[in-house]
């Protein structure tokens, strides 16, 4: 675009310069032409003036009546003009007859020549005054014609010999050789299309040189009118005049005091010869320059285009690469989540056998209790109605009371306590004189009747005491077994809940308030079977309230720490789990009394894929994932370990997460 501007500028400048040069060339030519016209006019003037002088002398002589034939010759000589220029000076009578000339003073040779038809003769004789075609004091410059006497081309300069008294004494005629003038004209080289001409006011050409050659021409009258219109004392330039045989640059100069003009005309072509050359050269140069510029610009553009293309390509590549990276990042993140989940599942898998057994145990109890209920119910249905029927009222009442007492919810006793109780009861019964005190005490304890056994003395002393107590026991069995089933079911429920809690993945990743103890207990439940095998668990839970967290991810943290602790202790030792407030947040510590962690391993322990376990056992990602989860929670983890004493991992979490 800059290129177009500069090219336009260059061409514009060149055009302007060329136009200016054109103008100045024309102007120069015009100037030259007018100068030439002036010069020739000056020359012509001198000639005319000389000739005119001679005619005036003749007139004066005639006026004085002193004219002799010899005078004509003398006057001719004294003009200073050679006979090549002024061949003839003649005296013509009023009737138009040649009287005398310098060539033929007595008019003998030429005889009587009738010149009356000649225009100039007629002009003079017409006597029209004033006559605009006459020069000063009446000199008439006639048209170029062939002289009757000389037989050569001449310009007839004639003067009417008008006496002061008004009488006409004829004319004096000077014949001027136009060739002399034309020879002068030929000296100048104005090109083949040029014209140098002496033109009378009447528009007739007296002398002319065309293209360096003397040739008689005629100017179109319209042209001459136009030239006249433009011509004053100051010459002017006319170019491209209509209907002119030769268009070009005209200059015309009036010959002072005479009705005749010096006309110089050159063709425009002539004026512009050098201009054409200059034009061609400059156009060529400019074209060359433009081509160079264009090529340069083309090259530059191409370079720019290439650059742009490669830029665009780069951008595309970058965009592509970014897209790939973005999707790779997304994949990695997803993979990380998957990894955490799969670590969890691996843990779960490892514990599955343990957890299955955890569930199996209560289920075994349920099964047994269920069968016991069936059996007892069978027996009761068989015995109960007939037994009750056979009892007397008092016994029946006591029996009823016994049954009621058996159904009371009792705080569960440990077997040690039960044993104690039985012993006391047994003693009491023995002291009361009850037979088979121990057996009956057992039965009463089984019915959870621990106090005031003698309330039921009636039964205890009854002959069919065992039968009654037996039946009552059956009923008590049903009650106990049902309760046992409930307890066992609660146990299973707890484990199932722990499993659900443990394997739950929070896809939404929304932080929520949660009690950390719940999570810890869930993990301990899952690991209960492993713990049972020889680990003593001590808990220290301070009431620290809720923490804003991702519960399922923190469960992964507890799992990892507890798992590691149990493994370190080989499932035999003491595991201490604590929750307490610290530094404005909550600290959770998991401590074992295993062998401890050596110094050189302590630094590496959080590295991904670092593990001290043999191949296939543990991916080594555990603590790395723990670290990442804690980073997410803006928490931290500390390790304290002493060889031979134990290891404690302490996790610190802020109560609330910072506003994101």
């Amino acid at each position, binding site marked *: 675009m800059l290129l177009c501007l500069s090219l336009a500028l260059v061409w514009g400048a060149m055009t302007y310069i060329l136009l200016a040069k054109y103008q100045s060339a024309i102007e120069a030519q015009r100037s030259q032409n007018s100068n030439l016209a002036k010069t020739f006019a000056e020359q012509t003037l001198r000639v005319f003036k000389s000739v005119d002088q001679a005619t005036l002398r003749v007139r004066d002589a005639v006026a004085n009546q002193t004219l002799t034939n010899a005078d004509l010759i003398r006057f001719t000589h004294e003009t200073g003009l050679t006979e090549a220029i002024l061949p003839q000076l003649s005296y013509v009578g009023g009737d138009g007859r040649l009287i005398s000339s310098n060539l033929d003073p007595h008019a003998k040779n030429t005889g009587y020549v009738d010149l009356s038809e000649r225009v100039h003769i007629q002009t003079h004789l017409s006597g029209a005054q004033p006559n605009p075609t006459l020069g000063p004091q009446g000199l008439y410059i006639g048209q170029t014609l062939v002289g009757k006497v000389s037989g050569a081309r001449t310009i007839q300069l004639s003067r009417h010999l008008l006496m002061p008294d008004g009488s006409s004494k004829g004319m004096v005629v000077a014949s001027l050789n136009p060739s002399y003038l034309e020879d002068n004209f030929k000296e100048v080289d104005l090109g083949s299309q040029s014209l140098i001409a002496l033109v009378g006011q009447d528009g007739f050409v007296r002398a002319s040189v065309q293209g360096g050659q003397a040739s008689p021409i005629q100017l179109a009258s319209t042209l001459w009118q136009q030239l006249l219109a433009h011509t004053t004392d100051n010459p002017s330039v006319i170019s491209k005049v209509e209907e002119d045989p030769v268009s070009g640059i005209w200059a015309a100069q009036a010959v002072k005091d005479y009705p005749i003009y010096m006309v110089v005309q050159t063709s425009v072509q002539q004026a512009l010869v050098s201009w054409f050359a200059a034009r061609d050269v400059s156009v060529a140069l400019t074209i060359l320059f433009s081509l160079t510029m264009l090529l340069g610009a083309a090259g530059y553009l191409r370079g720019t285009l290439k650059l742009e293309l490669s830029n665009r390509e780069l951008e595309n590549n970058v965009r592509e690469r970014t897209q790939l990276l973005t999707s790779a990042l997304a994949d990695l993140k997803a993979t990380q989540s998957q990894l955490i989940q799969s670590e969890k599942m691996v843990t779960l898998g490892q514990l599955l056998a343990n957890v299955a057994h955890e569930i199996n145990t209560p289920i075994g109890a349920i099964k047994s209790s269920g*069968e*016991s209920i069936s059996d007892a119910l069978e027996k009761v249905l068989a015995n109960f109605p007939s037994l009750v029927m056979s009892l007397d009222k008092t016994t029946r009442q006591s029996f009823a009371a016994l049954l009621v007492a058996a159904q009371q919810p009792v705080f569960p006793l440990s*077997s040690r306590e039960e044993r104690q109780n039985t012993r006391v009861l047994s003693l009491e019964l023995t002291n009361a004189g009850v037979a088979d005190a121990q057996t009956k005490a057992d039965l009463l304890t089984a019915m959870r009747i621990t106090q005031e056994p003698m309330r039921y003395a009636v039964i205890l002393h009854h002959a069919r005491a065992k039968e009654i107590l037996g039946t009552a026991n059956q009923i008590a*069995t049903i009650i106990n077994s049902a309760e*046992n089933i409930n307890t066992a079911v609660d146990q299973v429920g707890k484990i199932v809940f722990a499993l659900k809690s443990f394997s739950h993945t929070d896809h939404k990743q929304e932080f929520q308030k949660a009690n950390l103890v719940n999570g810890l207990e869930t993990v301990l439940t899952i690991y209960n079977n492993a713990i*049972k095998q*020889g680990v003593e668990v001590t808990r220290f839970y301070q009431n620290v309230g809720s923490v804003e967290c991702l519960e399922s991810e923190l469960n992964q943290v507890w799992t990892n720490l507890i798992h590691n602790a149990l493994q370190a202790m080989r499932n035999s030792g003491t595991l201490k789990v604590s929750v307490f407030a610290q530094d404005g947040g909550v600290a959770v510590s998991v401590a074992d009394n295993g062998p401890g962690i050596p110094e050189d391993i302590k630094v590496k322990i959080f590295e991904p894929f670092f593990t001290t376990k043999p191949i296939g056992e543990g991916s080594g990602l555990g603590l790395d994932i723990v670290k990442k989860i804690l980073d997410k929670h803006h928490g931290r983890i500390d390790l304290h370990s002493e060889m031979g004493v134990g290891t404690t991992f302490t996790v610190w979490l802020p109560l609330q997460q910072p506003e994101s």
Partner: protein
Amino acid sequence: MSHIVLCVDDDKTVLNALRTLLTNTLPEGCRVEVAESGPECIEVCQALEAEGLMPLMVISDFIMPQMRGDELLVRLHARYPSMIKVMLTGQADFAGVRRVINEASLYRFIDKPFKNADMVLTVKTAIEFKQTECDLRDEITHLKSRITELEGQT
């Protein structure tokens, strides 16, 4: 002779179920004692011993905190070699079982969850066995004294 059957399991529900079952199904004269751990079991045995009683049979779980089942039975065998030892468990490792068989003369091994009928049969058979043993011993003793008597008469 009162036959005392000891049940040892850390799970209260299992213990309850066992006790209920055995109390209702064992023949007259049998008593059921329960313990929730190995040490407690040993305590019970010692208390009984002090009363001049000896448990006939012990049914113990394998996986228990503090003291594992195999350890308990081995110890009991050391002190009461004639006690019938039954192991009741859902998960036991081979080494543990082999130990009890070899070092504690294990009588039976019962899987959890157990069928009531199986348990009852095992216990009754064991008691019968013991009874038979006792009876035989008594018989032998009686016969021996009779022989002596007879020999003395000749």
